[in-house]
């Protein structure tokens, strides 16, 4: 049996905003649609930026990618702010309980010095890579075009800050909240020859001008390789060294990577299928950055994992590239 509460219904004058109606017809719209489409100013800008007079404030020409409608890059997760923070809050809650468990049971005490050293030398420095990812996604957010892509890039940028903080907290759990492990791991980042290729590459990425290029270099190439190597393959190695519990602390990163890959793959697919020129551009960029990231990772992976590890990660990347329809 169903019960029915009688409410007074008033006939609405319209179902949604006019811009949404022009795009999708006169029918009720989703919150994602109303909070995304056509929010960004399109025309009649008053002044050119003092810092980039060659462009308008919002300008499609800040990338070589050409889209008829930048709002075609919609987010399959339908993240507007409210949906985004609520989804991340759930992930955060799970992570928090793992971190609390790890701390309460003093699981760090059960890790061998070898494992601790490995983490400090090779895992904790990822906080700096995440910082670069934060900058690169902010860059895309600030210079990108249309709310559909720029809001997703901002969510991504904030996620990267969050991940950098989770990685830092792993360090703080190893050193009993003194910060010593973070100082050591930063020294590795700054001085250990194995890391210098990656550090140089991170620095270089923050000087790239084309926002779509840097977003692709980061979110497709760098992330696929780094997440595969440091969160999946390293996970196996840690388990074999008696460091299985670390997986509790990197679960967030693994789940997160799955979530954003879904979004970014769909962005790439839409861009690639828009035109042959776009496809060629994406192809040239993936080629260029794949070889750069590979070279940069080689020394550190050489010390950390089995010889075939890098090839395995690259195979993963190639699968994604193919899936997105980025071909020569």
């Amino acid at each position: 049996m169903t019960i029915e509460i009688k409410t007074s219904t008033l006939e609405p004058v319209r179902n949604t905003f006019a811009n949404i109606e022009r795009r999708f017809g006169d029918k009720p719209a989703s919150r994602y649609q109303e909070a995304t489409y056509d929010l960004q100013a399109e025309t009649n800008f008053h002044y050119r930026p003092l810092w980039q007079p060659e462009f308008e404030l919002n300008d499609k020409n800040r990338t070589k990618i050409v889209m008829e409608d930048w709002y075609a890059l919609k987010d399959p997760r339908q993240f507007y702010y409210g949906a985004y923070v609520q989804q991340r809050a759930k992930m955060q809650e799970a992570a928090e309980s793992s971190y609390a468990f790890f701390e309460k049971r003093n699981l760090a005490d059960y890790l061998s010095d070898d494992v601790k050293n490995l983490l400090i030398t090779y895992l904790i420095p990822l906080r700096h890579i995440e910082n670069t990812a934060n900058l690169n996604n902010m860059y895309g957010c600030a210079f990108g075009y249309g709310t559909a892509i720029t809001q997703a890039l901002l969510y991504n940028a904030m996620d990267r800050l969050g991940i950098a903080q989770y990685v830092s907290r792993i360090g703080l759990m190893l050193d009993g909240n003194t910060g010593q492990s973070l100082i050591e791991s930063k020294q590795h980042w700054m001085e250990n020859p194995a890391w210098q290729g990656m550090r140089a590459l991170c620095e270089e990425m923050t000087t790239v001008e084309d926002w779509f290029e840097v977003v692709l270099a980061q979110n497709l190439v760098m992330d696929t390789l780094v997440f595969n190597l440091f969160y999946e393959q390293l996970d196996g190695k840690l388990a074999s060294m008696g460091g299985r519990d670390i997986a509790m602390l990197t679960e967030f990163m693994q789940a997160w990577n799955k979530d954003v890959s879904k979004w970014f793959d769909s962005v790439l697919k839409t861009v690639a299928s828009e035109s042959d020129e776009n496809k060629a551009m994406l192809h040239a960029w993936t080629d260029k950055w794949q070889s750069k990231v590979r070279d940069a990772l080689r020394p550190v992976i050489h010390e950390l994992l089995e010889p075939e590890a890098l090839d395995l990660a690259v195979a993963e990347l190639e699968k994604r590239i193919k899936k997105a329809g980025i071909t020569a």
Partner: protein
Amino acid sequence: MSAKKLNLKDKYRLLTRDLDWEYSYADRKKAFPYEEFEGIKITDWSKWEDPFRLTMDAYWKYQAEKEKKLYAIFDAFAQNNGHLNVTDARYVNAIKIFLTGVSPLEYQAYQGYAHVGRQFGGAGARVACQMQSIDELRHVQTQIHAMSHYNKYFDGFQDWTHMHDRVWYLSVPKSFFDDARSAGPFEFLIAISFSFEYVLTNLLFVPFMSGAAHNGDMATCTFGFSAQSDEARHMTLGLEIIKFLLEQHEDNVPIVQKWIDKWFWRGTRLLSIVAMMMDYMLPNKVMSWKEAWEVYFEEAGGALFKDLARYGIRMPKFVEVTEKEKEHISHQAWWIFYNYGHAAGFHTWIPSDEELDWLSEKYPDTFDKYYRPRWELAKKMEAEGKRFYSQALPQLCTTCQIPMGFTEMDDPTQIAYRSSDYEGEKYHFCSDGCKHIFDEEPEKYVQSWLPVHQIYQGNCGGASVEEVLRDYYKLNLGADNLDIKGSPDEQRWKEWKGVA
């Protein structure tokens, strides 16, 4: 282990700015290229005091809780036809102005803070700006969702983003934020974080939200409460940026003073629309504009500038003019809209007798003398079937873009005209403040997209004003514009309320 456990401040530093490092391989100036051209000297970013300490996990958690509550109210509001609880249909016009005029500024704030949140070399400042960027995105999106229900039942909301890019009076707020975003990163922060969020927010955000609370608008009011803790964070950022710049180098002081002068005046002009909203558009009044100005600027702002005096910062230029303007500005602004009600995306009206009396009481020195007679005349003409609309397009101030309707403040019967010559052209202004801003940066303001000029140049389609309004602005003529009296909004309201 000998090392000491971290305190909260050091821990936050490790979780934010310590993520950054000194570059050795790439040119850091190429990565952060916009820090120097404004002449601001930063000697040591590490002196930046984090205005708040919020890690991302805590941010997700708190904000998700707030969103959950907010959207529960929005749902209940829609389900129960919450729009029927507002004081009367006139009130809704205040939030039409909010959605078309203010929400797009929240969007620009999101973009502006994203830009500085990438461009500052100091990671502490960067992270604070990034958090403000995502907060501002929250604000524009929750405002859209709050208004979404009103849009289904009232006219004038439906094409807010299209309108913001084109409609004459909306170029006032749009040019304000275009101005800030097109400036360098430090000016942007002085403009928005300090002058706007810190000094003037109580005169923009609070009047709309209090107006909502006083007029039964649960959706907007709940949004306002939910945004309060975000706003508090934004204000602390505003205070930190000014202290930081002033403490970094004495050469920064005159630059910062120049920006404060400019943005204070820019801000007061933008607020004239809030002034008229408070005095004329709210069926249940919160307080008069004059009272709000006295409490929130003269008292609070006065104390603030006393504090800043030790850095060599003085009150903004032209502050003495605002002391006189608070008596006039709301009346003159609403009169402009009453005259151009056919070209506005919201409804206008003549104040009721009770409202005229309220205005007389709140403005004893000016209202009866200068403004009441106008409204009495308008009332008489309307009763005789001679409702008057100005057909000629008004001249606009090149800086603030408001029609030139404001008067000399010492002689409220005389329209104020100022002008400057630049490269063989003459530019017009509504006030000394606006002229001064132009004269400091003429090469910027000659670029202004002035709606009236654009119409005359044929850039807005149409041979007639009506075509511009209908085809270029996409106003639904006869529904969105003109007086509330006889409008479809009023008609529906009467039907819902069962009054003839």
